[in-house]
């Protein structure tokens, strides 16, 4: 990719590549990848996939942790400087969010006293919303900053510096959150229903006692489908939204006319995307609460 004339698919692939850190691999002439043993950033998509399981997508981690820290800092600052007399705008804003989530939780969670569900709902909603919000920043803005910064600081070829801004377009982040929700679901199922109750629910559910094998297959499929659909729904929406932004971005380099059309498209899609961003964060939260509620159902 050192050639100046960057092709459209090259541009798209460049923007879909995560900054992966792991064991560096070198491809020999005959196409056999061998590990070089020392750690480093992947130079290409193929090398990133060669790094296998123990590779970390640094951009996803950095963006999500920074946004998480920002969220916690904001709520802590509001909580510390809370005053019932003269509420500051930030306090009003935080109260509005918390009341909104409290009503949703009270509406769909009837599993008795559990002081984890509402904070979990708040964290999920605000964090995923912030992560999705990164999608509205123009596609090239942060990746170019990071690439130029890296080439200045570490003298790396900017073409090989990849940076994917939106953590939720990396399948690891949404599926990771979904797996945590799945673990919580199992924990509360065993805790509230008891091992016997939960296994009974898994094996006796739709068709009664004698159709045991069919029940088990059906119930385990539904159980496993929950985390995957929860995670992949967020990933699918954000990835498709990001892809449309990238495709619009490729129109800018075509010509002045196409560029102005692309500008209109970008504004239109960004406005529509604001709905998708909030909706997906809201749905992830509501489904988490519903799954927690199902885990607390006692037959």
């Amino acid at each position, binding site marked *: 990719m050192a050639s100046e004339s960057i092709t459209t698919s090259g541009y798209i692939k460049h923007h879909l590549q995560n900054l992966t850190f792991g064991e560096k691999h070198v491809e020999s002439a005959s196409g056999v990848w061998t590990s070089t043993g020392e750690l480093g950033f992947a130079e290409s998509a193929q090398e990133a996939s060669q790094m296998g399981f123990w590779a970390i997508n640094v951009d996803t981690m950095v963006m999500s942790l920074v946004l998480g820290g920002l969220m916690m800092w904001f709520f802590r600052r509001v909580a510390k400087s809370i005053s019932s007399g003269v509420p500051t705008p930030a306090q009003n804003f935080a109260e509005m969010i918390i009341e909104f989530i409290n009503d949703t939780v009270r509406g769909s969670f009837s599993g008795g006293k559990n002081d984890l569900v509402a904070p979990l709902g708040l964290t999920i909603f605000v964090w995923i919303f912030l992560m999705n919000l990164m999608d509205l920043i123009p596609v090239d803005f942060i990746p170019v900053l990071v690439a130029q910064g890296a080439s200045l600081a570490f003298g790396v070829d900017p073409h090989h510096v990849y940076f994917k801004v939106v953590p939720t377009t990396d399948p690891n982040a949404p599926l990771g959150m979904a797996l945590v929700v799945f673990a919580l679901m199992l924990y509360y199922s065993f805790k509230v229903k008891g091992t016997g109750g939960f296994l009974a629910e898994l094996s006796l559910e739709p068709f009664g006692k004698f159709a045991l094998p069919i029940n088990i297959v059906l119930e385990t499929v539904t159980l496993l489908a929950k985390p995957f659909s929860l995670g992949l729904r967020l990933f699918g929406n954000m*990835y*498709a939204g990001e892809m449309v932004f990238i495709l619009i971005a490729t129109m800018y380099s075509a010509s002045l006319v196409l560029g102005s059309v692309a500008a209109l498209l970008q504004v239109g899609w960004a406005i529509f995307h604001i709905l998708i961003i909030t*909706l*997906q964060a809201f749905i992830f939260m509501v489904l988490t609460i519903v799954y927690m509620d199902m885990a607390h159902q006692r037959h």
Partner: protein
Amino acid sequence: MDMGLVYIAGALMAGLGALGAAVGVGLLGGRFLEAAARQPELVPMLRTQFFLVAGLVDAVPMIAVGLSMYVLFAVV
């Protein structure tokens, strides 16, 4: 790997996903308008439920569209 097949696969996934989403949200919109016509005072509550269920109806089609783009661009 023959690129043509990959493109056809991606197009099929995205197209059928879009078909499903269109039919689903279309029906949902129709029911929403009926309910709003019958009880206009419930429109705010109905609207939030509409968006919630529209998001859920969109889930599998968007997963299909997301995966088709993943296949088209990231796997190749």
